[in-house]
Every structure is written in structure tokens, then in C-alpha cells.
């Protein structure tokens, strides 16, 4: 059992003022994880920031000095050795520095390492020790992991209803050891409300099965409720931890070699995490590519209100949203390769439709994508693509127009369709598909529930005022999509290194969850392993809860190697309930989320 610490740093106020904030959340409509202040006065702690984005094809780098791009560099990405392209780009950039040794240099890295490992299933086989208690059966979670259920049960308030069975645990852990697992995750139902069982198991492993260390504990990764997602998050984290450790070793070498002052990795939510601190939580660095592109859009553009951002690439189109000037976050967490996690992430949906997607026509219907079979015909590729239609229409000068024209002719001829008409139709179908996907995203968001009367009455119908286009093919397709949706559009100045700029402009962030139940006299900050006794439950109030959350965030940021001041912290979610039993108020419960305000530097 975690020893209950005395509540630190809480000058408990008198309980005279009753909190009237009952069940209200600060972020009412959706969990807008991010408040990005686009600002010029983000304090520059170092003179030079190198941003590097490892993309699928190329690795781009950028050198930033006080919001100005000094230089960019590019190298081919070697999928089997991500490190090589990264070092090449870094070396090229640092060479351009006038006097490298004199100033501090910070490296912000957005890499596909963890994303690829998960997508390609290259993580280690992981044993998941789960404490499900009663409820939905493990078989029905739809999780394809190696689950080892054990006895024990924590209920929704965080009370232990059934203890762990050490005999059973030892048997299970021996079996895991004998089966040769090198990665282990431990996840209990309602563990963010009571860390005890997960911590006990970790202690047992340390004492009797040390070769299974380190283990990933569910509650440390997220204080949010969702047991299957917490299992997924912890299992993926454990499975990629060894890869991350190797990666950290290599980057550390580079850091030493070039005398870099700090290295941050970009996270799925657009914030950064200190290189060393990412050892325990590599899962947070997944999907940093889409995050880099959103951060790039933020850094490079004027304030965006309610807009949909369409990033059109060769194979896919990524759709993300701005709501009231902020990038929208996923409500529950990132979804990667079909795995639903609790990893905070910017909202993004991928559409299997891009400039190089394969086009087909059966005389009645035109289909585009989702597969890509190489370059467009105009560039010597095998199959007709939307890019060829654009080239044939004379709207872009890419490769040989004549080739594109012939391919269109060949496809249309059996059905008596002229090349020009076919090209037009392909462009229309492309625009229609993107527009339909955007419509679906918005209607899905608008059916998302809200839980209080005031929210229902104030419920806004989310809709975009503007379409913002990014990516090579956007220039041509965007006007068509905008016409389709009857919206105005804006094209971001095309910048090859936009993602690298996004990585460079981002800032480190952390977030913590606080749960205080005054009837149980207990306060928990799961991400910090922090449990405290509330010594004076009747005078613990919302102000005290906020102070604890802020203090916890400061401690946590410190531990993560990115110290902050109280002014940099904001409370993003807040829920207070009176607990009434019989006819008496027996206590209150508080659930708060605090985070370091995410920031992005404006880049010109």
C-alpha cells in the first residue's frame, strides 16, 4: 500500500463559502485538450532551435532563431535506419551556424519511430497483467493482447472491494517469466482512482521477478477512465519501451557529439517531452507527424478561428480542425493502427485519397484510391491519378502532359468519354469525397454528447467558416472542395519544411489529473504516483483542489525535466459533486485536469 502522505502545500481555507460549481466543466463542448496561444512573446530560452521532422519519404530540418527560419536541410529517410537521415540533416544544419559553440542549441525532434513500430507490429511481445474485477468480459474488449487476468477489484470510487491474491499473482508472474516475455504492463480497472493494486504488483515484481522490470503501470500513463484504452496504452508503451531506450541512447550520442543543450521529442498533442523523460512514456511520441503539421500551420499562419485544415498528400489526405482559434483534440485519445488509446492527441482523420491515388472508371462510376501504385502517369507511373487529371487540364506543370492525356483517353474511350471531360469528373469526384468526409466528421462531432442542462442549451453546432489547405496538391483541389462546401478557403504558403518548423515552434507540455474524494479523505494524482490523506475534509474546497493540481503539475514538470512556473499552468477540466447520503452531505468529489499551457512560436 502506498503510504498516505500528508497533504503538502495546502493552506486549507475555511469551509464557509460553499462551492456552487456542480458538475460543470470548464471546457464545455468537447475536450479541447489544447489551448494554443499563438504569440510572439513566447520566451526564447535558447538562441537556436533545430526542428527535425522524419517523414515517410524525406527528413526535413530547419534552424530557427527568434522566430526566423535561418536555414533548412533535407535528406532521404531510410526506413530501416531513421537515425541516418536525422544525423545527416542535423550535421548539414549545424554546419551553417556561424559560431556554433557560443550559443545554446536545442533540438526538437518529430520522429516516426514509435508510430512505425506500432503500425508495423515491431514492438516486443508484451504480457498484460490485468485486474478486471466484475464487468464486461475480457473477451469482449476486442483487444488482441496477451492478457493475464488476476483477482482483485477496485470500484468506481476507488475503494478496494476485493484484495489481490498473491498466490495467484506469483503463479501468473512465473508463467509470464517462463514464457520468455521481456515486456510487462500492469493495468487495473479504476486504477487512477486507487493506485494500490498496480503499485503492489510492481513491488512484487521488483522483489521476486526483477528480470521482468521495468513494468508499465496503467495509472501513470493516464488519469482518464477507460479501462480497455488504458490497457492498450500501457501494453503499447511497454512493447516499444526497449526501442525507445535504444533510440534515446543514439540521440544522446548525437547530443553529446554536437554539444546540444536539450533535446525534446514532439508528442501527439503538439507539445514536447524531454528526451530522457520519454523513456518511461514512449507511447506519447506516437503520431507526432500530424501534430507537427498542425503546429506548422499554427506557427506559419494568422489566427485561425473555426476552420477545417486539409493536408493533401500523395497517398492520403489528413483532416484536422480548429475550433475558436484552437486545434481540436481527440476526446478520448489517439487511435493508431486500429488501437484506441488514452494518449492525448490533436484531432486528425486520415482519408485514403491523395494526388497519387489510383483512379478507375467503369463507364458509370469513378473510383479514387485508397491504394497508390507509384507516381502519376505524367511522371512515368503505372496508373492514372488525380494529379494526371490536373496536369491534363493544364492546371499544373508536372511531368509530361501528353502522357497524362493519353492515359485519360485510354480510360475514357471505351465509354465514349472525352479526356477533358473525364479529367473534370475526376477532379469533381475528388472534391466530393473530401467534402463528404468533412461533413461526416462534423456531424459525428455534433452528435457527441454533453452532460449538463446548460451545455445542451448552449450547445453550439460546430461548423467550419473556412477551409485551409496544405500540401502539394492542395493548390489545385482546394478551390473545388471549397466550392463543393460553399465555404471560402485559404492556402497556406507551401513550405516543404512546415512540419519541421512545427516541431521547432512547439514547447514542452505535461498534464496531470487530480481526484479528491473528501468522504474517503483521499487525494490522488495518478500520473505522479501521489496519494495523500485529506486531513480536514470539511474545509477542503475547490480552491484547495486547484492549488493541489497546480502544485502537482509543477512537481511533475520538474520530474519530467521541464521545470515551469505556476503562471504557465492552467486548469482545463473541473468537476465538483456533492455526495449526499441519506439527507446529509457526506463529502465532495473533485476531478481536475491541469496542464502546462501549450504554446507555439510564430514563425516567419
Amino acid at each position, binding site marked *: 500500500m502506498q503510504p498516505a502522505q500528508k497533504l503538502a502545500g495546502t493552506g486549507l481555507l475555511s469551509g464557509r463559502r460553499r462551492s456552487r460549481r*456542480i*458538475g*460543470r466543466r470548464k471546457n464545455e463542448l468537447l475536450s479541447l485538450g489544447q489551448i494554443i496561444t499563438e504569440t510572439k512573446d513566447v520566451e526564447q530560452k535558447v538562441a537556436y532551435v533545430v526542428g527535425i521532422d522524419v517523414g515517410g519519404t524525406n527528413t526535413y530540418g530547419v534552424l530557427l532563431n527568434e522566430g526566423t527560419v535561418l536555414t533548412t536541410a533535407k535528406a532521404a529517410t531510410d526506413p530501416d535506419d531513421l537515425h541516418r537521415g536525422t544525423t545527416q540533416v542535423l550535421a548539414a544544419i549545424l554546419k551553417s551556424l556561424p559560431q556554433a559553440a557560443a550559443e545554446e542549441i536545442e533540438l526538437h525532434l518529430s520522429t516516426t519511430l514509435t508510430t512505425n513500430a506500432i503500425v508495423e507490429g515491431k514492438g516486443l511481445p508484451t504480457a498484460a497483467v490485468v485486474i*478486471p474485477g*466484475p*464487468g*464486461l*468480459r475480457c*473477451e*469482449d*474488449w*476486442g483487444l488482441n493482447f496477451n492478457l493475464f487476468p488476476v483477482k482483485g*477489484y477496485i*470500484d*468506481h*470510487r476507488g475503494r478496494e*472491494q*476485493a484484495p489481490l491474491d498473491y498466490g495467484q499473482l506469483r503463479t501468473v508472474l512465473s508463467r509470464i517469466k517462463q514464457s520468455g516475455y521481456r515486456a510487462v504492463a500492469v493495468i487495473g*480497472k*479504476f486504477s487512477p482512482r486507487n493506485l494500490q493494486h498496480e503499485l503492489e504488483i510492481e513491488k512484487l515484481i521488483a522483489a521476486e521477478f526483477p528480470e521482468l522490470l521495468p513494468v508499465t503501470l496503467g495509472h501513470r500513463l493516464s488519469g482518464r*477512465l*477507460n*479501462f*480497455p*484504452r488504458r490497457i492498450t496504452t500501457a501494453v503499447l508503451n511497454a512493447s516499444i519501451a526497449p526501442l525507445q531506450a535504444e533510440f534515446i541512447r543514439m540521440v544522446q550520442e548525437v547530443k553529446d557529439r554536437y554539444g546540444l543543450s536539450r533535446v525534446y521529442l514532439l508528442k501527439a498533442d503538439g507539445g514536447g517531452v524531454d528526451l530522457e523523460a520519454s523513456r518511461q512514456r514512449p507511447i506519447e511520441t506516437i503520431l507526432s507527424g500530424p501534430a507537427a503539421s498542425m503546429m506548422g500551420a499554427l506557427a506559419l499562419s494568422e489566427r485561425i478561428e473555426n476552420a477545417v485544415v486539409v493536408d493533401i498528400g500523395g497517398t492520403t489526405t489528413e483532416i484536422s480542425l480548429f475550433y475558436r482559434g484552437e486545434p481540436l483534440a481527440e476526446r*478520448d485519445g489517439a487511435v493508431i493502427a486500429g488501437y*484506441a488509446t488514452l494518449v492525448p492527441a490533436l484531432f486528425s482523420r486520415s482519408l485514403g485519397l491523395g494526388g497519387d491515388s489510383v483512379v478507375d472508371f467503369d463507364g458509370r462510376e469513378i473510383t479514387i484510391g485508397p491504394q497508390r501504385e507509384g507516381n502519376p502517369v505524367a511522371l512515368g507511373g503505372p496508373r492514372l491519378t488525380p494529379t494526371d487529371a490536373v496536369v491534363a487540364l493544364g492546371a499544373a506543370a508536372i511531368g509530361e502532359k501528353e502522357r497524362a492525356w493519353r492515359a485519360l483517353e485510354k480510360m475514357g474511350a471505351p465509354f465514349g468519354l472525352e479526356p477533358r471531360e473525364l479529367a473534370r469528373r475526376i477532379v469533381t469526384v475528388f472534391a466530393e469525397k473530401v467534402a463528404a468526409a468533412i461533413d461526416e466528421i462534423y456531424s459525428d462531432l*455534433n*452528435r*457527441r*454528447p*454533453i*452532460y*449538463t*442542462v*446548460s451545455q*445542451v*442549451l448552449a*450547445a453550439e453546432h460546430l461548423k467550419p467558416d473556412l477551409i485551409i489547405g496544405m500540401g502539394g496538391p492542395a493548390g489545385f483541389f482546394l478551390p473545388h472542395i471549397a466550392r463543393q462546401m460553399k465555404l471560402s478557403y485559404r492556402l497556406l504558403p507551401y513550405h516543404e519544411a512546415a512540419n519541421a518548423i512545427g516541431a521547432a515552434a512547439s514547447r514542452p507540455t505535461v498534464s496531470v489529473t487530480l481526484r479528491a474524494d473528501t468522504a474517503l479523505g483521499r487525494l490522488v494524482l495518478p500520473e505522479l504516483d501521489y496519494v495523500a490523506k485529506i486531513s480536514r475534509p470539511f474545509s477542503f474546497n475547490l480552491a484547495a483542489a486547484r492549488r493541489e493540481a497546480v502544485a502537482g503539475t509543477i512537481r511533475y514538470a520538474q520530474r519530467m525535466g521541464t521545470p515551469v512556473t505556476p503562471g504557465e499552468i492552467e486548469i482545463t477540466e473541473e*468537476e465538483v*459533486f*456533492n*455526495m*449526499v447520503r441519506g*439527507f*446529509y*452531505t457526506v463529502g465532495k468529489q473533485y476531478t481536475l485536469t491541469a496542464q502546462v499551457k501549450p504554446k507555439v512560436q510564430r514563425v516567419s
Partner: protein
Amino acid sequence: MTQVGLVFFPAFDWAISPDHPEREERLLYTRDQIMEEGLFDLPEIMEFRPRVASVQEIAGAQICVPSVEQVATKPHLIAAGGTITAGELVLSGKTGRAFALLRPPGHHSMRIVHGARGFCTINNEAVMIEYLRRLKGGKLRCAVVDTDAHHADGTQDIYYNDPDVLHISIHQDGRTLYPGTGAVNELGGPGAYGLTLNVPLPPGSGDTELLYVIEHLVLPVLRDFQPDLIINAAGQDNHFTDPLTNMRVTAQGYARLTELLAPDIVVLQGGYSIEGALPYVNVGIILALAGLDYSGVIEPENQEFTSKQRPVREEVIRTVAYLQAVWSTREEQDLDEIFGESEYFQRQRYIYYDTDNITEFQAEAIKRCPACSGFRKVYSRAEHYHGRVTKIGAVLLPWHACLSCRRAAEEAYHQFAAEKELDHVYLLDPMSGLEETG
């Protein structure tokens, strides 16, 4: 696999009063349990936002005195609207089934509403049913099976004389619990005799009794009635931990009930064991609706209840046998013997509004019409606790009213309108959903 649409509206900012069972906190632990179980991520379950019901939609089902605006607050409009959302999901085929997991509840709210009784002001399920019937031009037969521990006197009152809506209420015996009604001899009006069924269960009844009633009475009756929609008004206060009742049903019992009944739409009613019962019962119901295995949903305090298989109580077997006989002979009954031979069947009663402390006297006359189910005239006098008295006259047209009933109803309305002592006069036509007031 069945797709289940979940309209979850816990009204986290609304309470009847701070320490009332119907308070902010009621569905908090249920939400936590649903979230932690990850139910919203299951492909079988889709969550929907409730809409706000319009004043006209409420007025199409109930007569609120003096007006909908003055009786129903915003939370009521959202709860009714959310129930309509659930109904629309099923009727449009968007989801196979739907669960309106919301509050405030509605089943004690009657046709005429002077205020709140039994924590209910607006009858969510009736508002939905009337809305859906209008969508279908009146061609929709519904069955409401109310499994709350309290007699569903409100819904019964609304459908008392409606041949297209079967109403079955299973509840703790009225002699031992609010509202006191719901005896086996309450069987419906002359236009819908036998389509109101009441199954009072003795205190202490559990899963065995409840499931016995479902299997031996409710399912055969539903097979006969052939409704287009089965609606389960799902109260969760039969639970062994409920503080207001004396029953012994478990989460497993509720889930099995849901599986057997296979309702199209489930609408939450009462249930005030907010920590010990609701989180588990609701998860059980959702899983059962989705056709998922619910055998693992067991509440912490439930050790003795699941292991103990008691035989069904003799009393319950007798009640079921009696009602089976009523059901199978309902069409052979001589209605003149039951309702008298005069042109109108008349009854008088007192209705107590416990929540708002109002006493209502009602005198009602139902036209015995061979061509339709007959229009109703209601005189209602409500005395509020501070002495204010409101008197109203209401004329209710049935669905598919015949021409002569329409004419007679018009005439009755004008007669009421001419009476000076009445404060308000109403005419409700369910087909148009229009309420005329004067």
C-alpha cells in the same frame, strides 16, 4: 450484434433539491462505470446527444396546467427530447435499439399535469410515443413494459383507454409503496379493456419473481398483441440496495430481463441506489441490449443474492395465473357489466402530488362509442399546498376519433368554455398534436 443508440443525459447540473434522491449526483457513478468499461468504444454502441423537446411536442401528449412553459423546466424538455431522440433512432433504423439513459424521469406524470409527482413532471415515454405515432400517421402499435418498483400510474393514466398502446406495469405491491395504485383489477377503460395490466409483487421479490412474470405473462401477451415497438420503462429501484423500496433484484436479473424482453427502446425511470446499483444495472442493460455477454456484471455487495435460487413465491404464481386468464378472455367480457350501460363511463378520483404537495380531484367521463375508443371529458380541481385552487376542464380526443365523437368533443369543449368557474379549458387532439386552450 445489435447496434444500440445510447442517449445519455445525466443532467449534472439539475436537482429537485440538494439532498433529494433526484439530484446531480444520481448518474455520476453510472457515467464513471460506463466510461471505465469503455462501452462507448464498442462497435455495438453509439452515443447520441439529446435534443430539446418543443413545447408543442409536450402539449401533444399531456395537458400541462396552466401551460407547458410554466410546468416544465429546461431539464424536463431535454429529458423528453432525449427520449424522442431514442425513438427516432429506432424508427429511422439508424440503430437497432436505443436506450434513453437520462433524468429527470417521467412515469408518474399523468395526462393532466398540475406539477411534479413521484419526482416526475413530464412523461418522457408518452411524449415520445405520441411523437412517433404522429410521424406514422397513427399507424403504430406500442407496448410499454414498466419495470420500475413503483406503479407506473402516470403512463397508465395516459393510455388507459387507448387500444393501440398496451401498458404493463410490474411493481412492488401498492399496499406497501408509493403511489399505492396498480392492483390487478385496474385493467383499462371501456375502449381498451385488458390492455392495462398490473402485476403487483410482494415486497422481497427478486430476480426469480421478476423473470417469472416476464416469461409467463409479459412475453405471451406481447406475442398476442404484436406491437410495432416494445418500450421498457426501466426503473432500477427493484434493486436489493435501493433505499426507497423493499425488493431484491440484482444487476444480473435486470440484464436477463432486458435480454428476454428484447425491447426496442429503453427509458430510464427511478433507481436511487446510485453507487451500489445504478452503475452495474445500467452496464448490464446496455450489454444485454447490444447482445453482449453480461455474466460478469456483478455488484460488490451481491454475494448472497446470486447464489441463492429461491422458488417463485406462490402469491406471484397466482397473480400471473389470474392475469393470464384476464388476458385470454378480455375480448369475451361483457363490457356493459363492467362499465355500465350508460352512454358515458364515469369515474372520480383523488390524485396526490407528493413532490409538489398538490391534491387533485378528477371527475372523468369516457364516451362509450362503438366506432372509436371514445372521447374523454375531464374536470380537474387542484389544490396547491398554499391554498391556491385551479379548476380546469379538458376534452381528450382519442386517436382515430369517429366523426360523431369529434362533434361531441367540440361541443363538450364549448360547454366547458362557457363555464365561468373554470380557470382553463383544453382540447387535445393527438392526431394533429394540437392543444386548444381557453
